[in-house]
């Protein structure tokens, strides 16, 4: 039996904020809509930024991409701070159980020395790749136009710090919390020949100013090559001889990558469909960065995957090209 609880009902004067009504009509708004649309200031700026006096504080001219409405670049995950943090907290709880399982049984330290050395050489240095991605993502959050982009970009920035720390934990699980693998992997990242071409490209992104190009280089292209190459292909190769202990930890990274991909795809697809100039620019950047990054990844792929490396990279690139074509890019 259900009992109808009577509450006093007063008809509201309006169902949502004026700026949301103009976009979606006079109906109740979602929390994502309330937290996102039209929140960034867009008119009557007061001062010339000392760090960029030719443009306004928030300015559409910080990228060559153009949009009639920057709020068309919405996030299909509909993240606002509240559901973002609760989603990540829940995922972290699950991950903590896995980390605990692996740590209690010393599963990574029980691996053969050459496998541990391989993880230290080829997985742990990616913490620095993630820190680079954090920098690049912060660049998008800082200089992009409109809350629809800056808000998920800031969340992505923090995600990258989280991923860097997760990869660091893999290092600590290998070195028994001494931190030696982290120290070693930093030298590997800054000095070892296998990694220098990739570090070179990450640093090239640091001096790329157009925020949309940075988005393409880092969040679309580099991630789409790095994540599958290391956390699928290399991970499978390691699992083949050593069981799935490492995979239980890289699975988190892949799931995060797939979830983030929904946002990335929506942004690129919408921007590319906006006008032919956008499509040409986005396609050009995608091809340039893809070619640079594929070349940059060849040495580390070669030294870790050996004779499988060419096939692995080719498979990663083929999957990426298919995805890019679906987003409306000519690659």
């Amino acid at each position, binding site marked *: 039996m259900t009992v109808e609880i009577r*509450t006093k009902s*007063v008809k509201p*004067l*309006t169902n949502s904020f*004026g*700026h949301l009504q103009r976009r979606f009509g006079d109906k109740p708004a979602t929390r994502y809509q*309330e*937290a996102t649309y039209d*929140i*960034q*200031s867009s*008119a*009557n700026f007061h*001062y*010339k930024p*000392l*760090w960029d006096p030719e443009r306004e*504080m928030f300015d559409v001219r910080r990228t060559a991409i153009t949009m009639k409405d920057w709020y068309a670049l919405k996030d299909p995950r509909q993240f606002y*701070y*509240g559901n973002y*943090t*609760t989603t990540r*907290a829940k995922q*972290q*709880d699950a991950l903590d159980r896995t980390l605990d399982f692996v*740590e209690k049984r*010393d599963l990574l*330290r029980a691996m053969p*020395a050459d496998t*541990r050395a391989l993880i230290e050489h080829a997985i742990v240095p990616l*913490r*620095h790749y*993630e*820190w680079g991605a*954090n*920098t690049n993502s*912060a660049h998008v*959050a*800082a200089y992009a136009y409109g809350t629809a982009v*800056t*808000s998920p*970009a*800031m969340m992505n*920035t*923090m995600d990258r*710090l989280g991923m860097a*720390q997760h990869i*660091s934990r893999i290092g*600590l699980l290998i070195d*028994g*919390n*001494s*931190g030696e693998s*982290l*120290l070693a992997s930093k030298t590997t*990242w*800054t000095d070892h020949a296998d990694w220098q071409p990739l570090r070179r490209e990450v*640093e090239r992104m*640091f*001096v790329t100013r157009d925020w949309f190009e940075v988005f393409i280089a880092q969040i679309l292209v580099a991630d789409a090559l790095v994540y599958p190459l290391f956390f699928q292909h290399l991970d499978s190769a390691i699992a083949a001889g050593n069981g799935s202990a490492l995979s239980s930890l890289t699975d988190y990274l892949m799931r995060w990558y797939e979830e983030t991909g929904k946002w990335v795809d929506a942004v690129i697809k919408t921007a590319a469909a906006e006008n032919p100039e956008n499509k040409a620019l986005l396609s050009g950047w995608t091809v340039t960065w893809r070619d640079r990054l594929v070349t940059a990844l060849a040495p580390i792929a070669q030294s870790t995957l050996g004779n499988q490396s060419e096939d692995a990279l080719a498979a990663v690139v083929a999957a990426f090209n298919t995805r890019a074509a679906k987003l409306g890019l000519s690659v």
Partner: protein
Amino acid sequence: MAAEGNAKPAKKLSLKENYALLTRGLGWEPSYEKQEEIFRNISFEGIKIHDWEKWEDPFRLTMDAYWKYQGEKERKLYAIVDAFQQNNGQFNVTDARYVQALKIFINGITELEYDSHRGFSMLAREFPGVGPRIAAQMQSLDELRHATTQIHTISQYAKYFTGMNEFPYQFDRAWYLSIPKSFFEDAVTSGPFEFIVAISFAFEYVLTNLAFMPWMSGAAFNGDMATVSFGFSAQSDEARHMTLGIEVIKFLLEQDPANVPLVQKWIDKWFWRGYRLLSLLATMMDYMLPKRVMAWNEAWEIYYEQNGGALFADLARYGIKPPTRAPETIAEKGLVAHQMWSVFYANRDAVGFQMWLPSEEEMDWMSEKYPDTFDKYYRPRYEYWREMEKAGTPFKNTTLPQLCQVCQWPCLFTEPNDPTTLSLRETEYKGETFHMCSDGCKDIFDDTPEKFVHAWLPVHQIYQGNCFLPDVDPTAPGFNPMYEALRYMGIKPGVDGGDFKGSADATNWEKWTSRPANIHEGAYTDAVRDTGNQSDVARKAV
């Protein structure tokens, strides 16, 4: 079984060690690109940093801990917000005047949180050190949280009351909202070091308690469950932000003695700008809260004179002095609330919230709180205006006020030690005259005139004809420039602002709640039931 050479049990890590391992080594010295090409904004202000590693992380939060801690806070907060909405909590506040204070909050404050998110995301990108960058990143995300929770909380009020429905639009256009807008834009358009001294130290560390206490206690005293909840939930974020503020100052001062005069200049500037911005709270505390928490002068004594005094005594060892214009803020603490309320009242047809004259009971409270100033200067003014209201010829200002080039308040303040003489300052720059409200604002203008000549002064813009919507024809018969300027600002003329008595908010409130819209004046309409205490209050007030 552990493999050979790996048999030692895994070391147990303290939180501090864990944080250090997971964080500090992440950055590297770039070699393919030049450091100055990667971090382009950190040298032009003249601040010298020799060792970014000396930065002491104030929080030591790893991301997993941040997500869990913040996620838990959000779960609790949204449970309350949901219950508030389900139960029409907006009708549980003291009276409909309280809602006018919320209008100032959503229209004037929420957008600052977003600007702050952007300002900190720029630091998150531009600082070379890992520690300060992570601190800035977390604060950037926190600020996004504050904007978001404020919108989600106040949206319920916006559905039932006027004047809250166009907050982003009004923020960019309404003449009095250029006070907060220009404040934060000044900070974001500065260099990264000035920004962090301005916001993290001068604003968050020195002044934030002053903003937090009256808003949140005021909300609690007046039954606003939703605002209290987001306020308390934000408090632990604010505690982190304040810690960042003091760490920043110490870091900058310890890095190089040449940083001291720059930091001092920014403290002087941003203390004054922050004070001018926050003194808006003076009117809220003294006039807008139906149930009052404390008076502005009392709050200034506790939160600046005592706490700030101790802080600056502590910073003296670095060669830092208290802000140059602090004496003025103390001298005028008995004046500002009354002067601001008078100007808003006089311009009530041009603002997006409604105004009223204080009741007898409220004036008695102010006499008690401000024994040296209220009865002498302001009570006679309000009594005279009440007579004019009764006579059917209420006092109104029909022109727009002269704004200060720096803080953008109307030039409404008096000389700090002479409440009968208006304080006006001017400076000539490149053949033009610029007007300021005070010595504090004149100092700022004179130091960086090139920046402040660009200020978008709304009153100037209105009079230059730049504030009309595209459908407006100024040559059409019956063209009303004030009406049209208000429309441009997103203010509904005659609805959002004006006299509280007779407003849609007051009338709806009594219809919906059967309680008086102004507890100090008694019922405006027949919708109010004559019950118990409320009518006693009303009778006493009449």
